[in-house]
């Protein structure tokens, strides 16, 4: 047995370790290779694995041996006159194989969602460098990104994430209909959990780069301030106490919303309505409003997802807490979720950038109709 396995093992080049850099850091954005790609590469089993220092003895790949057995059996059956797979039996099996296909509806839709999320991931990764690039306003190379473009990316990403999240919810609702098998139900729930987890991970990409951008703007603002706000003290105390009292859940909402409203110009208030009053009086560019709103809408868009992002944002924002311009915090009991994203939409943000957002939006279309 082992003897025969070896004949095939050494026939192919022992390329397992050399050709692909398995132990190196994975290229960003690449998922694991699909299983089909690795069939027939018996050398694959040889090399080491996850933990860099553990080199495990190989298990023996006898797939080729199996295929050889198949040939042997076929020949033998032919010689004995037994029908092998083709003919009447074959067509019946074909039929059998076709009938479960409709059930594959769930998996094909699941895979669609995954591929959409994958597109989002690729898009984010593709533009990540430019997005984060701090000196884009200085450099005048072709590859820089304007803030408007960034905002567009943000907005699109948020919409997209929300759409995906809704799609997952929908799938969940429908997954258990028409299915009577407990095992299949369990399987489908688990699959949906995996997809949701995938979405979370990709959203983390987004929130990380977003947080960096926000921090940069905040720091810039802070540096450009010349004098501290009045009533800073009391408001600051209430503010920071709120931060510490709600370290886990609310922080994603409150510090964010508390951070920015102070900068919202008085003229923007009627549109904001639900934001309350008592702002500071410095101007806020439309960008910053969008940013502030963007973050809360991001939080709102994630109603299906856990607050992993808050972990990323809180340290950034608590660092920013110490700036003197944190005033203007009032009680904000309700969560202003749905109103905001639709509130401020100036023409500037609508401008599409050429970066490929168009193509991205085109991809969005099928998703939207899919939902």
């Amino acid at each position, binding site marked *: 047995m*082992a003897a025969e396995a070896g004949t095939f093992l050494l026939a192919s080049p022992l390329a397992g370790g050399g050709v692909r850099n398995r132990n190196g850091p994975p290229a960003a954005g690449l998922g694991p290779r699909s299983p089909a790609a690795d069939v027939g590469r018996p050398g694959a089993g040889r090399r080491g694995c*996850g933990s860099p220092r553990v*080199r495990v003895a190989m298990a023996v790949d006898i797939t080729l041996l199996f295929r050889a057995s198949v040939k042997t059996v076929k020949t033998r059956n032919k010689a004995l006159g037994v029908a092998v797979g083709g003919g009447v039996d074959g067509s019946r099996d074909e039929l059998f194989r076709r009938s479960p296909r409709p059930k594959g509806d769930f998996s094909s839709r699941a895979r669609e969602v995954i591929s959409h999320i994958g597109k989002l991931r690729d898009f984010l990764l593709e533009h990540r460098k430019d997005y984060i690039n701090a000196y884009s306003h200085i450099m005048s190379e072709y590859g820089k990104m304007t803030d408007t473009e960034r905002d567009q990316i943000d907005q699109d990403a948020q919409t997209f994430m929300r759409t995906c999240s809704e799609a997952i919810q929908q799938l969940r609702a429908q997954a258990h209909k028409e299915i009577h098998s407990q095992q299949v139900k369990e399987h489908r729930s688990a699959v949906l959990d995996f997809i949701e987890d995938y979405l979370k991970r990709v959203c983390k990409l987004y929130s990380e780069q977003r947080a960096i951008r926000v921090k940069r703007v905040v720091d810039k603002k802070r540096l450009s301030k010349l004098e501290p706000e009045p009533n800073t003290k009391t408001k600051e105390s209430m503010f920071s106490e709120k931060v510490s009292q709600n370290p886990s859940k609310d922080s994603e909402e409150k510090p964010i919303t508390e951070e920015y409203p102070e900068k919202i110009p008085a003229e923007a208030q009627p549109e904001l309505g639900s934001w309350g009053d008592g702002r500071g009086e410095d101007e806020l560019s439309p960008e910053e409003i969008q940013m502030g709103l963007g973050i809360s809408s991001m939080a709102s868009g994630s109603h299906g997802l856990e607050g992993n992002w808050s972990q990323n944002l809180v340290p950034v924002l608590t660092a920013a807490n110490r700036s003197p311009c944190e005033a203007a915090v009032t009680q904000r009991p309700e969560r202003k979720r749905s109103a905001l994203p639709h509130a401020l939409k100036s023409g500037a943000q609508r401008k599409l950038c050429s970066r490929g957002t168009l193509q991205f939006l085109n991809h969005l279309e099928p998703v939207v109709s899919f939902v």
Partner: protein
Amino acid sequence: MVGVKMAAAAAASIRERQTVALKRMLNFNVPHVKNSTGEPVWKVLIYDRFGQDIISPLLSVKELRDMGITLHLLLHSDRDPIPDVPAVYFVMPSEENIDRMCQDLRNQLYESYYLNFISAISRSKLEDIANAALAASAVAQVAKVFDQYLNFITLEDDMFVLCNQNKELVSYRAINRPDITDTEMETVMDTIVDSLFCFFVTLGAVPIIRCSRGTAAEMVAVKLDKKLRENLRDARNSLFTGDTLGAGQFSFQRPLLVLVDRNIDLATPLHHTWTYQALVHDVLDFHLNRVNLEESSGVENSPAGARPKRKNKKSYDLTPVDKFWQKHKGSPFPEVAESVQQELESYRAQEDEVKRLKSIMGLEGEDEGAISMLSDNTAKLTSAVSSLPELLEKKRLIDLHTNVATAVLEHIKARKLDVYFEYEEKIMSKTTLDKSLLDIISDPDAGTPEDKMRLFLIYYISAQQAPSEADLEQYKKALTDAGCNLNPLQYIKQWKAFAKMASAPASYGNTTTKSMGLLSRVMNTGSQFVMEGVKNLVLKQQNLPVTRILDNLMEMKSNPETDDYRYFDPKMLRGNDSSVPRNKNPFQEAIVFVVGGGNYIEYQNLVDYIKKSYEFTFKFTIHIRISALRTYQILQ
């Protein structure tokens, strides 16, 4: 020593290796690389009971989930078709399993099949599967077929057992019963050798084998040597090529395999235990690192004669992640009780700290003057909050061990196991006995009949001269009165007669147990562990026979006990019958295997031996095979 560093860097424990191998298998036989933005890939896992036993000590359900497994099912269960999902099989290549797999193929249960056999499958069985695949037009769906060579169960970083499902097959009784036929013996030996072979394939090293002559261990050694040799000779297909060798890369790093037969020392398996892990195994229901407790609720208050209320069953996994367990599994029991108490106190202190900070936060809402303190407290609270998971885990472990230790303590008190332990230690070390054996046996309060029988057997085994007929009759009567079955005694008599002919009886060195009086700390703090009346015995242990043999062989010491041991080196061109070791250097890695079953006492003794002698110079791995500890039952 130059060799040490390299060994330390290259050697991974057998548990790590087996876990990595499993994960690779679950990843469609491709090495597993973590990727934070990777697409989810899902699959179902199908295993038989053997596969289940191998996987369960190593991977938790959560870890299976992390690898993308949506469902894990037993092979021989009702399974519904789940379309569009790949299935990973991990089974033994037995007739029934192959039949069932063929059935699955015919029923088109899954989209693709990744077949993994725990030990190598024969050509003819492979053809059976090929046949079924052809008939079902499913050949293309069989994506991969692998021989995993994982036919052993790793329970600790440095301890493995052969199997759980058919342990009776390879137990002491199976090997030593008088009516065994040659073919049966062959089967048993083949099973053992197959597992050992898988073990060395996974370890990635070819050992040097030493065994005693004229025993079942020798049979195993001969077969294993032959199997390794055949595999190495076949250069094209050897499983031990340069790529895959782990610690064995450098030839002077080859491990030593010591094969001993259970018969060299029958007293230790019968011995009552005193260290935590050994006690849990001896006294509670403990298998594959899982302990099952039955907790009765409110029994104390029920009137005499009333049925106790429903018993809650609880089970706990004692894993390498459990820090308390790792630290204390080899400690004497009183120390364990004290440590649980300490952990509980430190936990309470931390909990109070968090509560205090919380209340500070609440109070200072209106007080502006305390702003300066805020940032300091915020930092503290943040760190307290972030350590919450740690704290919760600590609490979980404390609860777990409180329950387990309490259960153990109940047994100790009920059966007076401390008395047995102390007495047996004295017998085995030939110190003078302060109580008469007959007294203990006749005492109705002390121990179950099984305990008494164990005690007596140890006495009988260790005695230099057999007790006189009259004495023996007296003992027998006392034992029968206590409810014991005398069959084991019969067996031991014969064994002893035979053992006398073969070699000198094993000596246990000079062990003393010091009774340190009652633990004042445990008593005073009103702990749960009221160890009143339980002796606080501390072991000053010397090496057990198995440890001694290992010591001799590893250090190349000359000793009449081991000089006659056979020497096998599968890598040598020609095998020989000599006992002269070619390799003159002391070994750095050793595997100890007891044919007939080891036990936790010996395991602990070996672990202690390593710690004692080789604190800073070597990295050791020692493996001992354990089958049923209840050798007593096997003797019956």
